[in-house]
């Protein structure tokens, strides 16, 4: 079936560096999401994106965060600069226009900020 792909699966960077997390959503999906999950905790919404624009962002979506879909393919989450508390697993999801399909999630990118 269709899948959301996230690359890479694990990224280790030094605090203060920039990181870009990549997501390859399902090809005919129009809505895109990023979620953050700290180990053992619930999924927390960061941001959703539609038609080239941010629809809604949470308090967790700090000024250092940005999203875009530059070439119509990858949906990216950029953190610049990173902080220690950004260490978590970041999940991307996408969904279609119609309210009969739950958003489909990728396997996540584990971000370790040292």
């Amino acid at each position: 079936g269709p899948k959301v792909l996230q690359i890479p699966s694990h990224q280790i960077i030094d605090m203060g560096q920039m990181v870009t997390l990549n997501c390859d959503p399902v090809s005919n999906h129009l809505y895109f999401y990023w979620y953050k999950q700290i180990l053992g905790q619930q999924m927390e919404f960061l941001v959703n994106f539609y038609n080239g624009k941010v629809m809604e962002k949470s308090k967790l979506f700090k000024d250092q965060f940005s999203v875009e879909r530059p070439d119509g393919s990858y949906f990216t989450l950029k953190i610049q600069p990173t902080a220690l508390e950004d260490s978590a697993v970041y999940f991307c999801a996408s969904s279609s226009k119609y309210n009969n399909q739950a958003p489909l999630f990728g396997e996540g990118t584990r971000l370790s900020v040292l």
Partner: protein
Amino acid sequence: SQWGEENLQALSIQEGEDVTMNCSYKTYTTVVQWYRQKSGKGPAQLILIRSNEREKRSGRLRATLDTSSQSSSLSITGTLATDTAVYFCATEASSGQKLVFGQGTILKVYL
């Protein structure tokens, strides 16, 4: 049950038993979606139940929704060890809007 400030719930049962997990929600929703997350993996869709439905079945899964009490349940019959995972319910005000996840229920099914 899961939601809001409730602690993460954990259940441990023997393979073959039936189990029901509950969640309650606080805001308006058009659907309740149940996901399963296995260790080290992303959430996987299980079942979606819409606000005009009271019950939905899929294989060994059964979801219910009571919009008057703002609660939903997920039942698994004849559990298997492979059902071991964290189960989340999530609500969505409308298509494309954010999913709001509950705290989750940790289910461990042992042989």
